């Protein structure tokens, strides 16, 4: 049998002299390559934004008028340092849940809400505490709240679930987050449309289905992609609400 006299690597023995340089080069290149590859992938990712839970604000308790779009909103009448009167808050529950069952009985009434705030730029959301600690009827006169129609618009941007976008997840938007976003939307967490450019000064619009319905299931397939769509826009306080026409949804190239 022909004998092979070349160097032979055995893991538990000292490396053969002839292979040491090669092994050292492989080790260095392997570690450097992994680090470089990881850095390249990291750099290629989109900026997750500055959205976050504002635990530093502490528990927020404010009073206002409850509205249903059908996603629940609070038009704040008595605010505080972080949530001024006149502001419109989007309301959500813990995890991937909504607060509609608690908000529906209070529609059009004065209510006190309490919870933790999520904030991303001008987008604010309040994650309510459980039960009546989160939302309960308040005493006082109800101030009539104006809803201003802004007409029909054609917009480009991305449909997101409002809670993750506002800071519950990082990233809270984009394809990597699509499954999470759709689970939130199935839980009727308020969805938000991020417009490519501000609409009447606002980059974020609460998005609903047509005629006061929830976001239609058809729209779930377009979540996290850059799309164009049409719909009626209305202003509720400092929040814009987009009533989507689902037939106009198109994925942008």
């Amino acid at each position, binding site marked *: 049998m022909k004998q092979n006299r070349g160097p032979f690597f055995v893991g538990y023995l000292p490396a053969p002299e002839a292979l040491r340089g090669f092994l050292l080069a492989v080790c260095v290149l392997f570690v450097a390559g992994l680090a470089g590859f990881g850095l390249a992938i990291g750099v*290629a990712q989109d900026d997750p934004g500055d959205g976050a839970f504002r635990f530093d604000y502490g528990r927020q308790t404010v009073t206002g008028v409850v509205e249903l779009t059908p996603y629940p909103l609070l038009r704040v009448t008595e605010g505080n340092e972080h949530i001024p009167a006149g502001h419109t808050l989007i309301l959500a529950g813990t995890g991937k849940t909504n607060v509609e069952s608690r908000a529906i009985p209070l529609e059009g009434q004065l209510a006190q809400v309490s919870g933790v705030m999520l904030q991303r730029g001008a987008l604010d959301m309040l994650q309510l505490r459980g039960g009546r600690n989160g939302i309960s009827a308040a005493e006082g006169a109800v101030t009539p*709240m104006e809803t*201003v129609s*802004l*007409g029909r618009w054609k*917009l*480009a941007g991305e449909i997101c679930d409002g809670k993750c976008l506002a800071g519950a997840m990082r990233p809270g938007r984009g394809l990597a987050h699509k499954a999470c976003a759709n689970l939130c939307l199935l839980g009727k967490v308020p969805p938000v449309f991020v417009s*490519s450019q501000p609409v009447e000064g606002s980059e974020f619009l609460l998005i609903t289905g047509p005629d006061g319905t929830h976001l239609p299931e058809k729209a779930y*397939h377009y979540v996290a992609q*850059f799309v164009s769509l049409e719909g009626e826009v209305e202003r509720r306080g400092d929040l814009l609400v987009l009533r989507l026409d689902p037939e106009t949804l198109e994925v942008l190239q």
Partner: protein
Amino acid sequence: MNQAEAILLGLRIWGSIGAVIAAMFLTIGMDRIDDDARDAYIFRPLLIPSILVIWPLVLWRWYLYESGHEHWARRYDPPRKAHFYVGWVLPVGICLIILTGLSQRQTWPAETAPVQLSEPTEISQ
């Protein structure tokens, strides 16, 4: 049918075929090709999940044993011969998949301005 439904349907079909093959192999085939497995049943359900996934390989190995084409030494040849190529195809393929994914990403439509299609219709309270 959208992409998610197509993927789910494909997985269901693959798993259903795997379930039939698992039932046949674990009740009939195993006794025919493995003497050591005869009269031993408790461990067989543990194999069901893996057969659901790799049932084509199970069928192929079953055929080799049944037909007498199985030679134990040859079984180790193909993996050895393929090591060099697989060793390159795997990392290059991963890089290509990532690069393809990155190159196919949509671009944020920053230049697309909102367009008002119609004037406001009403003011309500």
